[in-house]
């Protein structure tokens, strides 16, 4: 598989995950948000362990976003 094909494949995988996560969030399942977060964190870790620098950086960025989101949630709940 060429580098371009790999990039396209990676983009498709990311899109599938994004699509299915946003659909699952809209269900009546009570723990949907937690399940989506868990899956996304697992994927971020997989990316972080990739042999490709570009993907490791993507994974690191995703984990960083999670940490910032949790921080902001904590700050909001602390203020309330």
């Amino acid at each position, binding site marked *: 598989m060429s580098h371009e094909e790999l990039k396209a494949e990676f983009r*498709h995988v990311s899109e599938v995950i994004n699509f299915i996560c946003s659909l699952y969030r809209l*269900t009546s399942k009570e723990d949907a948000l937690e399940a989506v977060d868990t899956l996304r964190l697992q994927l971020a870790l*997989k990316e972080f362990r990739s042999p490709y620098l570009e993907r490791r950086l993507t994974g690191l960025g995703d984990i960083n976003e999670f940490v910032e989101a949790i921080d902001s949630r904590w700050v909001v709940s602390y203020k309330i």
Partner: protein
Amino acid sequence: MNFLGSDLDEEGEDRGYQFLQCVLVFIARSLQTGIDPSPLLPLLVEIFTLRAQPFYTYGTGTEYCEEIITGNETDSGLEAFEDSEKVSRMVFAEVRARNYNGSTRVTHVEGRFISNINSFGRSFGFKSMKDAILHQTPPFRVAHLRNLVAPIHEIKGFLTTEFLDWFSLDVFPRISHQVPSLYNHGGLTCGHR
């Protein structure tokens, strides 16, 4: 003269609506036959991309709204989405509060769009797509999987919670389970350098 002009416009819109609905039913029935749906799925995304369709964007009429508002004789229970006797009464898509503007009047554009989605669902289009996702076997074709999920994601703002439950509660765990294989396929893990 103006009246005649708007009359013709409405007639043209009716034909456009009927055409798009026929295309959706054709796609749904083609998916049911089990043929390779790869050429049809991008077309489905195009039809479901509401704002990309000039027909929906510039529509001016007022028909096809009532069935969306009333939704009277509908069945409930997730299994009804797969029941050939009940599916014709199922509501796959509806106007949500955020699209609703607080009034009981649904816009022509949304009404027709939602009718099209329901026609596709009642022709077992969504069931065929769900089956195709659930019955995938390795090696997974990631682009194909993406094309199966993308049309449903495109219209997520209109889908009923019941339909989303029926679709996502089976599909999400399945795809979550497949993810390691998908990522291996995408060369993400060690050993694929």
